[in-house]
């Protein structure tokens, strides 16, 4: 998704969460539920990005680690960690995907005018996976492009 698409609306509702020391914001439209940590099942050979599946109310849902895709260093998980269940288009079909978060902060409405493209220089994050960023209370908040991140993974999985 391009920032321009997001900026067609004046305001968007976002969920902010922590990954390591970084704060991310995800569109609240994608969010289905927030769960306490669940027992996970390892999928052998699945790679580091989507290493597990979890049981979400009777559905088997892949559990992704966005830190791998975004190159964010790992941090010790504590009692604040959560699982976010999202519905994301995968190859044109909506699919349930869970992501790990080290903490979930708040649901906030943000003016899209305050959002910016990623600076071309000085970016330590993969630009193709980020829509942009904005300045929050405690520093920059990243807007990950989840459809792009997961589509790249399905393409890789299909090719394997």
């Amino acid at each position, binding site marked *: 998704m391009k920032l321009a698409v997001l900026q067609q609306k004046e305001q968007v509702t976002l969920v902010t969460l922590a990954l390591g020391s970084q704060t991310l914001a995800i569109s609240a439209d994608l969010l289905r539920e927030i769960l306490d940590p669940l*027992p996970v*099942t*390892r*999928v*052998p*050979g*699945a*790679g580091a990005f*989507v290493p597990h*599946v*979890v*049981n979400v109310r*009777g*559905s*088997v*849902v*892949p559990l*992704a680690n966005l830190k791998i895709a975004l190159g964010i260093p790992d941090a010790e998980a504590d009692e604040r960690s959560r699982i976010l269940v999202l519905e994301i288009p*995968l*190859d044109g079909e909506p*699919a*349930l*995907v869970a992501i790990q978060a080290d903490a979930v902060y708040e649901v906030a409405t943000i003016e899209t005018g305050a959002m910016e493209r990623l600076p071309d220089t000085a970016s330590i994050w993969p630009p193709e996976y980020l829509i942009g960023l904005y300045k929050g209370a405690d520093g920059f908040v990243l807007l990950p492009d989840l459809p792009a991140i*997961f589509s790249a*993974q*399905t393409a*890789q*999985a*299909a*090719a*394997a």
Partner: protein
Amino acid sequence: MVDDELAGVFREELRDLLDSLERGLLDLKAAPQDMGLVNQVFRDLHTVKGSGAMFGFVELAAFIHRFETLFDRVRGGEVPVSAELIRLALAARDEIPGLVDGVADPEGRRDAILAGLGALAEGTAEPAAAVPVATPLVTPLVTGPALLEFRLLGEALGLGARPEVVLAELRAMGAEGIVADLADVPPLDLLEPDQCHIVWRMRLPAAVTEAQVEDVFLFTDAEWKLVRALPEGEGFAFELGEGAGEEAGEEAGAGAGAGGGAVAAPAGAGPLAQVAATPVQAASVLQAVASAVAEGPAVVAAAATIRVPAERLDALMDAVGELVIVEARLTELARQSRDPALMSTAEQITRLAAGLRDATMTMRMVPMRSLVGRFRRLISGLSDNLGKPVSFNVQGEDTELDKTVIEKLADPLVHVLRNAIDHGMETAEERQSSGKPQTGMIELSAEHAGAEVLIRVRDDGRGMDPARIRAKAVAQGIIAPDAVLTEAQVFALVFEPGFSTATEVTELSGRGVGMDVVRRTIESLRGAIEIESTLGSGTSVTLRLPLTLAIIEGLLVEVAGEKYTLPMAMVQEIVALPPDRALPKRTGDFLDIRGRFVPFLRLRGLFDCAGEPGAEQNVVIVATGENRVGIVVDRIVGTNQTVIKQMSKLHAGVRAVSGATILGDGSVALILDVGHLIGLGRGTGPAGFAGMAFAEVAA
């Protein structure tokens, strides 16, 4: 017009009727004299017309009415079944959905079809044709073909004339719509075996000259007549000569009284052998028809059925799936509680859940027959287009599969069948020169084998050439020039993306897309595909599919604390791993199972598990067909009802896992793809993985 619900019911019904109609027409093409089939087609048309009118589809009803009129005449023996008639009837059938949906027909296709059908129906409405005689056929859109009729005179047959040779020559000149008129064939007791009583009529291309026709009859004592430039709309009033016409009339009266009516044997529909070439054969054809008529229309027993939207069945299956999981949880809790009352209730729930599960799964089973109709049509069309005569046999149409499997199976099977006829089948000439019957054979068979269904497409065509496939794969960079492959591995190369051996890209196949899609679809159904082929004598493609995609009996195993499920139907036996084999060795890992060597895989190694195995490990021997492989696990947990959940597309690359299931304690266990593991164990899996497996085994 009509409220939507009623229209929906009509559409549902219509789909079945159209399937039945198509099947009837195609069967009729193969057996034009079968009055039972004619009656069936007529009944279907009549029902479509009736329900269409009832639901307010006026245009449809009017269209079918004219279609039906023609078949009424066929039924009365006034119009013969011919290839042309079948072709037009199928085209007319294809227009029906458009009529129902109110699709416009700007090109006037429907009118053209109706005109064609009308011409066929009225061809015999001419004076001479109050007589049930065969009618030559004409396509109204084509003008100016010459019409030829001939009969063999006097002792011609006795003197060695061969009508089939004459017909073959005429066909070589482009004769079409050949019809044998049996009206003059006398009753059996009056029959003179060495006299030919049949009149043949056909269409010849406009370019054919009298002199050419004369040449054909040079050595045959025959009476023939060539009529040109048929004025449009005038029908086919052949002047048979006065005597002949009258005779035919008398004969017809007698014939009609006999119940079957005189029957015309069309030649266009099939090989020459089907044409009554001699009076004796003609008589036997008449008898056959008479007996068919005597049997009357088959009594169709309408079973009491109820139509249910597919989504409701899916919802029911989902609910049953949840129930089975909760039931497993309940059983677990009851056992822990040690409360006898609770345990006995849990047992009853278990029994009821199993019954409900079986009933629900049975409801979702659909016979293969529902797919076969469109395949007949496909084969028939391809056979005509490619000029490769093919007979299509179907075995085991009643074999049932889960409806999801059936739905997803249609496209892959179409592809395999197309390949069989387009690549596999030789032309009639090639077949003849290699000593095979001219008509090729394609067989589609379906049968149950344990918890699998085997669907096989077999042809007696040219077979696959391993050397050519190999060369092509090397040229396309799919394998290295020095790769060592078994024959099975070579055949499996055709499933690689981008592979195609067709030297020419035909309209149908040869673009190299397809077989990889076929394999992917079959694998997404937890099935497998195998090819066997003998160069020169044919190819057989076998699809192995699970009976159901919903719930299976599973064997739960544990490896390094992780639980995995194996489909019980594929488990042959479980043996203890001999202590001296506890750790992998340098040499290949084989087990001696009652004198036969079975390769085995260590899941710990394959799945990259941490830690060392315990003292006792077990080997689960799994099999598909003849292929057996052992899978080394730490512990056998037990059997359980496994509700299959699809893996996400994000895990599409994990080939060793075919799905997941939720256990009684709410955790997820992965279902192992036994077909894939067997491929790994035997080194016949995808090239990249095979090496890895051997490395693992040998490491």
